[in-house]
């Protein structure tokens, strides 16, 4: 919380932790509020717009729009609504490409602009999913920051009318061995565990990676997916004059006041220090959220809701302006009717509060009692705080006096900036620093050591230390969860209809080339969905970047968005929504550009799913989402490498982990090949010719084979073609390994030819070692020991 410096800012006087402040909190006195009338009378009163993150030009625009200076409450409202976080003012001009270049898709029921996009997955079901950042709060207070990130994205999904059914988390931290990572990572994981488990949502996957660029700025991106029937879609619009506006859920307190503008719009870690901002992080109450979920679903089922909006960043300010702007256009709100948990709060703080677990609904007057009755059943507090009007104005009163009177669209639409973008001057030198110059292992022993180093490195090591803290089973429909490539959830027990999800991002590739790097992330997420046997349908994204005021960062951003829009057009999957997180930097050093891409796929029958483990039958036992398993199954399955392998090491895990090197060109994406590979995998899954499938990514073929062996507790014997080092460690895109069932080789070859996917027979599943014929052998016991010891040794 930035303390405004000027006197006469009534609404900050009673804050603070001095003894005097505490006495005042116990016995709040009524303050003289800054009303619209007073604003007219005192046009020259200075206001702390700069401290609230508004520029002089923006403040002038507000004054011009209103024809007077804003009141304190209006200033608070505009400051949070026009923050980068809420207004997308720097990114809007680029993001429109997602709509402009969108491929024709019959699957999209609601797209960008809603709380989350909605996709038709067949059989009358619709699915909504979205990923959102909670990076800055998670650095300040890792546990609550991450917890409330889960809560926020779940309410986004709930507001669309869907029942949330699963969550995922894409996490990135500073060096694994850095002391601060030891503070941030365990807190983030415990926060996600605390909130998601209590809420009863399975956590089915995500990412965990480490890089020095995230040391002062971890990335905590939370995804939620929800399911509804087609006719259950809800809208975030306040329609119908006379309809009641109801705020329900938790009470409103001082937590997170100004969080949206202060934490996201000011460069993080600025001179005024982190400690001054600490109170800005919100505190989560997952049990109340659980009640809110069940309450909302009953309200929808009973047809009691005209429009609904979740309260996230910018709380009541955002919900009222957006509902009003998208609806009839006017709204009257009595701010003194908002249930408070701190009686000392005034209008500006009520508007800015980011207290969690709140929703706002628009309800027909004769149904309000029924609405309140459902809330009472679920022990959810609810209050009628206003009504929809046709005045075209958003008017708010405080004990009878008008404190806000604005055209709602002026706050909801916000400014639009065409920020200067300029290719970073060092980009060519970075590209010229080719990893070909790095020393490579000369023999099998050297490659063996390199593989062990890779699978024991923090980013590629076994992640059970993290994922064991999440409940992947709750709700009873999880078919695949980490460490599988994608999460898979069953929607219909009878037909077997299900949805697959994966998120991917690679900051190193994007640093080398943000356009190609973003397409590589898209391709990997698409492939991770495809290797479960699902058909990819739609895309969400969380775009994590440095400051948009830095032209080099803006160039990275523009390139990434262009890459994603072009990539989605090439793959035929539309972007349904997303989130932009700017100001991810320490001092003036931005993080690697890190777009995290989420892909949703549909599985016609989850009983045909493919999993990564060798030696396991996909439709028998074992094969569930768990880790316990018995050996057996397809001892003689043939392993085939799909896709083309080139010598591509720029940004690779090998260069990063073994040499601390980042330079050269990232692998070349081939989205057309990606599309053919996905079609082949879906057809092969349906035909039942495969017993395992695993995508190739960080660490290449060697790491992928090691993971499939470890997951299935079964070894393999393979002979690699061509240059052994390239075969083992190159990270060429668009590749996967599959285990073909004995006797199904001819059928699979036919499918492969029909889909025009190149394949190389590598060897067979079996034994208790990973054997690269003529190069080296690693026993599964040694492989498992190296793979599993890293994270427990680091984090306890």
């Amino acid at each position: 919380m930035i303390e405004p410096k000027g006197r006469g800012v009534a609404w900050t006087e009673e804050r603070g932790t001095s003894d005097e402040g505490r006495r005042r909190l116990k016995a709040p006195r009524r303050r003289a509020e800054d009303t619209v009338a007073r604003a007219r009378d005192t046009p020259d009163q200075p206001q702390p717009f700069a401290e609230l993150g508004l520029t002089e030009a923006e403040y002038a625009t507000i004054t011009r729009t209103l024809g007077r200076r804003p009141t304190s409450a209006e200033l608070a409202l505009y400051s949070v609504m026009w923050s980068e976080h809420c207004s997308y003012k720097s990114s809007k001009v680029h993001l429109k490409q997602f709509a402009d270049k969108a491929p024709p898709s019959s699957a999209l029921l609601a797209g960008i602009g809603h709380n989350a996009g909605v996709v038709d997955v067949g059989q009358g079901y619709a699915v909504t999913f979205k990923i959102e950042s909670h990076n800055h709060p998670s650095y300040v207070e890792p546990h609550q920051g991450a917890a409330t990130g889960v809560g926020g994205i779940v309410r986004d999904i709930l507001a669309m009318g869907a029942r949330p059914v699963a969550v995922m988390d894409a996490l990135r931290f500073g060096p694994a061995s850095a002391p601060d990572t030891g503070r941030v990572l365990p807190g983030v994981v415990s926060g996600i565990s605390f909130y998601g488990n209590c809420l009863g949502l399975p956590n089915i996957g995500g990412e965990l990676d480490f890089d020095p660029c995230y040391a002062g700025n971890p990335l905590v991106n939370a995804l939620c997916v929800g399911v509804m029937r087609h006719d259950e879609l809800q809208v975030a619009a306040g329609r119908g004059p006379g309809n009641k506006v109801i705020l329900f859920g938790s009470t409103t307190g001082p937590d997170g006041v100004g969080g949206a503008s202060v934490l996201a719009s000011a460069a993080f870690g600025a001179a005024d220090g982190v400690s001054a901002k600490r109170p800005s992080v919100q505190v989560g109450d997952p049990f109340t959220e659980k009640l809110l979920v069940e309450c909302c679903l009953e309200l929808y089922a009973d047809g009691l809701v005209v429009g609904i909006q979740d309260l996230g960043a910018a709380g009541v300010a955002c919900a009222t302006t957006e509902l009003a702007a998208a609806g009839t256009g006017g709204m009257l709100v009595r701010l003194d009717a908002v249930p408070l948990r701190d009686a000392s709060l005034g209008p500006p703080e009520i508007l800015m509060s980011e207290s969690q677990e709140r929703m706002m609904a628009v309800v027909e007057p004769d149904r309000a009692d029924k609405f309140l009755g459902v809330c009472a059943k679920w022990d959810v507090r609810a209050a009628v705080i206003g009504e929809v009007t046709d005045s075209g104005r958003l008017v708010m009163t405080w004990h009878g006096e008008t404190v806000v009177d604005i055209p709602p669209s002026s706050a909801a639409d916000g400014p639009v900036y065409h920020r200067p973008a300029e290719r970073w001057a060092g980009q060519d030198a970075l590209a010229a620093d080719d990893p070909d110059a790095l020393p490579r292992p000369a023999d099998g022993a050297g490659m063996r050591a390199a593989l062990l180093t890779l699978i024991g490195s923090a980013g590629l090591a076994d992640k059970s230390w993290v994922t064991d803290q999440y409940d992947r089973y709750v709700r009873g429909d999880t078919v695949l969860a980490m460490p599988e490539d994608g999460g898979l959830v069953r929607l219909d027990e009878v037909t077997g209809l299900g949805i697959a999800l994966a998120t991917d991002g690679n900051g190193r590739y994007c640093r080398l080339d943000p356009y190609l790097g973003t397409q590589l992330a898209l391709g990997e997420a698409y492939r991770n969905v495809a290797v479960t046997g699902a058909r990819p349908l739609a895309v969400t994204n969380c775009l994590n970047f440095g400051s948009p005021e830095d032209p080099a960062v803006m160039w990275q951003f523009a390139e990434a968005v262009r890459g994603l829009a072009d990539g989605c057009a090439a793959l035929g999957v539309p972007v349904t929504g997303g989130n932009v997180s700017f100001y991810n930097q320490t001092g003036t050093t931005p993080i690697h550009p890190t777009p995290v891409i989420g892909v949703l796929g549909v599985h016609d029958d989850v009983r045909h799913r493919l999993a990564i483990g060798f030696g396991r039958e996909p439709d028998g036992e074992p094969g569930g989402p768990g880790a316990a398993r018995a050996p057996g199954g397809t001892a003689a399955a043939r392993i085939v490498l799909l896709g083309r392998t080139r010598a591509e090491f720029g940004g690779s895990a090998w260069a990063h982990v073994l040499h601390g090197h980042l330079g050269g060109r990232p692998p070349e994406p081939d989205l057309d090949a990606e599309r053919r590979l996905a079609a082949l995998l879906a057809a092969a899954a349906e035909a039942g010719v495969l017993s395992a499938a695993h995508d190739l990514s960080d660490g290449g073929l060697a790491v992928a084979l090691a993971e499939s062996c470890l997951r299935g507790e079964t070894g393999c014997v393979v002979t690699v073609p061509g240059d052994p080092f390239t075969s083992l460690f190159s990270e060429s895109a668009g590749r996967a390994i599959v285990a073909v069932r004995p006797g199904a080789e001819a059928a699979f070859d036919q499918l492969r030819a029909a889909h025009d996917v190149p394949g190389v027979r590598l060897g067979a599943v079996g034994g208790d070692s990973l054997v690269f014929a003529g190069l080296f052998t690693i026993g599964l016991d040694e492989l498992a020991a190296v793979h599993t010891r890293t994270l427990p040794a680091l984090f306890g």
Partner: protein
Amino acid sequence: MRLAGAEPVSLWHGDRDLSGVDAAILPGGFSYGDYLRCGAIARFSPVMSELVPAARAGLPVLGICNGFQILCEAHLLPGALTRNAGLKFVTRDLRLRVENAQTAWTRAYRAGQQIVVPLKSGEGAYAADPATLADLEGSGQVVIRYASGNPNGSAASIAGVCNAAGNVVGLMPHPEHAVDGLTGPSADGLGFFASVVAQVLA
């Protein structure tokens, strides 16, 4: 229960009514957020005022995870569940050993049979005083034990106990997540539900 051939009926926590059920399961979850001691508030739910006398009169009752914690708080079962030894939530597929196959909920198993069922809890460490533990061991009230390592620091690796009559069983692992190979690690958990259905129909 449906997979075991019975009709499941939801009971509302605020009702003083068991709807004439033949057996009751207190499922897992986070009653009242577990902000206070797990199960400490839920034991006072109105429905418990009906459930406790019914359980004492012989109604088969199974408490899973949070349900187990509630049964301990309600003193239908001895002992208590405390924070895991590692102080972290643990989700893991575990090998369990059925120690007592004579209870209302375990007759479908053989004594000594090993089964694979997921555990997922943050406060699953079973604790009781030495005398109680000795009693439980002596009277066969230890129903289920962790068979490969002790995941949470439970006394004597206890994963589940029953009352003296054997109709009330509390279990930390989740057998409902082991009812088929598609959504769980095994179908080994079905036996708990099949046991009670067989008893009710007998």
